């Protein structure tokens, strides 16, 4: 008895989610205390109102904590060759200070994960991805002599800044010539007291609009946050959580693990994972380059055509087609696929979804059987779907350099 005041060890310490390098600032702004988790880190589901945060991304700008993202330095004389054998895209033509989006597969051509490669130097790359991939990376080094993998996940603080005013904010923050940075480009900037250029900015993101990602060492994380928020004050800056990100990425037509795809290494049932062709990522597979993981299987897949294809659907009505099946007939007798993500899109004013549909049925009618709930009663509704080729939302400013005025 009596020592309850002197407890110094938190008996739950190991179980609690870790706090990211920006946590101190985000916790203050998380009015709703609504946290999710990502790779062991606390990550806001939303801070104040998910839809409001989503609109900040479309209207002003928002920040999204990507400290939970996995980051690996891949370096050495063989780094490029090693990565090029691992991923399906050809990275041998990449210039320094460029980023590229890519995927990597098993020998069977099944997708392990998607991610981005940053070419930081001739023999120095950074690979980022959603799930820990250290084991696979190390396996992929087999046969290469001069390549090292360093897990930087905890040693780099990273924050995405997305939305129409994002470039203005960075300008105001003093990042000279940020407006000359092209999509998928990288620039390094001086920051704080430091003599070198500790702040790396890439023009990348996951929202389909103008946006940047900021990379810095953890010691400078909070100072960077403050400086960004000072600059952003008059440009409608707001932190956003996973809920808003999910809305924005769906409108942009981007895929998400555990929604559109299962990581092949974690899938129990073969056929519950996917090839890049099924995910409509054909453009990420380059058969012209030398051998790479999954090449033979993917060649066959290309030749045979994928059984399923991920498509964008515009669905009649306004009830999100979450977790529903799609059919080739209004009577819902012939099932031809399933919806992977769905939402009412507030900017486009359309009922949108991504869905895996049997390729051979894509030219015909597609009907979704939608279930929804109203005051404890459940209802069903069958709605016609139209396949869309383009992302539901894009804006010319996201591709223009300098970005168009907000």
């Amino acid at each position, binding site marked *: 008895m009596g020592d309850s005041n002197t407890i110094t060890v938190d008996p739950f310490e190991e179980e609690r989610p870790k706090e990211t390098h920006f946590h101190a600032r985000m916790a203050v702004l998380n009015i709703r205390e609504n946290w999710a988790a990502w790779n062991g880190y606390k990550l806001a589901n939303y801070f104040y109102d998910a839809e409001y945060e989503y609109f900040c991304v479309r209207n002003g700008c928002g920040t999204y904590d990507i400290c939970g993202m996995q980051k690996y330095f891949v370096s050495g004389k063989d780094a490029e060759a090693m990565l090029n054998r691992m991923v399906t895209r050809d990275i041998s033509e990449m210039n320094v200070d460029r980023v590229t989006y890519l995927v990597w597969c098993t020998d069977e051509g099944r997708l392990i994960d998607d991610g981005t490669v940053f070419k930081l130097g001739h023999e120095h790359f950074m690979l980022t991805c959603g799930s820990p991939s250290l084991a696979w990376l190390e396996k992929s080094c087999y046969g290469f002599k001069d390549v090292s993998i360093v897990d930087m996940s905890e040693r780099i603080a990273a924050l995405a800044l997305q939305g129409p005013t994002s470039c203005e904010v960075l300008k105001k923050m003093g990042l000279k010539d940020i407006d000359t940075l092209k999509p998928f480009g990288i620039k390094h900037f001086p920051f704080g007291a430091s003599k070198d250029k500790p702040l790396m900015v890439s023009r990348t993101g996951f929202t389909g609009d103008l946006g940047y990602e900021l990379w810095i060492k953890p010691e400078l994380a909070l100072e960077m946050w403050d400086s960004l928020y000072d600059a952003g004050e008059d440009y409608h800056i707001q932190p956003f959580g996973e809920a808003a990100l999910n809305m924005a990425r769906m409108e942009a037509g981007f895929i998400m693990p555990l929604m559109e795809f299962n990581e092949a290494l974690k899938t129990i049932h073969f056929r519950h994972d996917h090839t890049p062709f099924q995910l409509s990522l054909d453009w990420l597979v380059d058969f012209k380059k030398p051998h790479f993981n999954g090449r033979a299987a993917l060649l066959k897949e290309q030749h045979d055509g994928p059984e399923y294809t991920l498509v964008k659907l515009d669905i009649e009505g306004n009830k999100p087609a979450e977790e529903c099946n799609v059919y080739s007939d209004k009577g819902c007798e012939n099932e031809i696929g399933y919806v992977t993500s769905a939402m009412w899109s507030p900017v486009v*004013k*359309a009922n949108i979804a991504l869905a895996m549909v049997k390729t051979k049925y894509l030219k015909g009618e597609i009907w979704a059987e939608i279930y929804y709930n109203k005051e404890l009663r459940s209802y069903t509704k069958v709605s016609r779907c139209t396949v869309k080729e383009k992302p539901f939302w894009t804006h010319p400013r996201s591709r223009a350099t300098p970005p168009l005025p907000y």
Partner: protein
Amino acid sequence: MNQYDAIVIGAGHNGLTNAAYLAKAGLEVLVVEKNDYIGGAAVSRELHEGWIYSSCSYVCSMMRQAIHRDLNLTKHGLLLVPYLGNVAFGDNGETLVGYTDEEANYNALRKISPHDADAMFRLHADLARYAQLIRKTLLRTPPDPTSFRPRDIDELLWLAKQFWGLGEKELYEYIRFFTMSAADYLEDYLENDLIKATMASAGIIGTALGVYSPGSAYILLHHVMGDVDGNIGAWGLARGGMGAISQSLAGALQESGGKIRLNAGVRKILVRNQKAVGVVLENGDELHANIVVSNLDAKRTFTQCMDEDDLPSGIFNKAKNFKIRGSSGKVNIALSGLPKFKGVPNNRYVNRGGQAFVGSLETMERAYDDWKHGCWSKDPFIESVIPSAWDPTVAPPGKHWMSNFVQYCPAELADGPWTPEKRNTFGQTIVDKIERYSPGFRELIVHMEVRTPHEIEAEVGLTEGNIFQGELTIDQLLFNRPFPGYAQYRMPIKNMYMCGSSTHPGGGVSSACGANAAREILMDLRLDNTVPDDDFYDE
């Protein structure tokens, strides 16, 4: 060229919607607009460099999603952004903060009245039920109750079914709604005056009625029936101001080959053999068309743009007597910074939402008394919002503007005509009132646009400055709008139609009037109907 398939008079948002659908159906369409800008009461104007005012309408919740989606207005630049929160200010400095978060909202109400915090759930459920019913009628042409055409009978049956669906008791309640005052209606639910006043204020917006006047309950409903992305009762801002709505509609119109002519006020609608055949412009130009559609209010259309002799007897008088009293003013204020309000948490959300200077039920009623006596309210009800706090494009960074919608302000003053001096004094009344709740407000003012019904009529052409193009009382609603027998967008002259807010479902930025009218026109031309309905909006 001066021969068109259709001429639409007025580039208000309804005129543009109508024209867009006619053009989409392949007609050669010309919109003629008297001003050198489009939009009518849905307009954005840069009157002071760097600041963009929504000069008239300022928030949006009635815009039909089906139209937005069908005309792809997003592609044409439209982005509707909901704003959060609302603060109501009482006479004695009390504040009531309305939060978007249900729990927070409940706690805030409870601080003032635990009774009302509970009662609010029932009130909202009831309002939602009634609103749902009206919402279903928005994109439908009202039936003519005296007609035996199958279509009218079907539509009447549909309406009856909707109403009967409420159940007998609710039906009686519903009918009462059309005749009750907002204050009386709320009496059955609420006890706290500030809460009642806050709710009742929606019943007098844009309306020549007081909170105790019969009929104001319906206006309340009209203002809470809208939604933003399914959030019923929520209001949004159009990015770039309300003019963005009109601009995007113009984009859709032009994409289909439709044309707009500015500085082209119509003096007369040309009638030959009881058929509309075109228009004569103020400059004397004659333009011909197989169809003429008026976006102007009913009074203006018939009493100013037509000869009494061209009309069947009775119509001219009906138009003359159309109830269209103006009662609102609009004061747009450019500010050098974000104002702060007494008694409101100074956080990044609440201090930036909407403000309602309601005072109390009594204060609002006295404000109405002033109007009845032919002067503006000395202590007016003001509904405000600071669009720049939500939209980075309408003021320079760090600067703001505040939209103030004022009840009441008469179209004609008891002491003689409006003068610039009187207008300024009216403007100062508003500034004085805001200053009471936001000390230092006056110092922030960079520019002001003060609009009384007089300016609204002169600039937008809304007769008497009535914001709805005609009052929303039961004698002028549904199949009575604008006149009994003429609620189906066809006018007494052949080939002539109406598509403005004077028609069903009335005022507000909804595109519904224009779309419904287009559907009727296409039907008369035996063209395929391409105008969407709202049926997907499955409640």
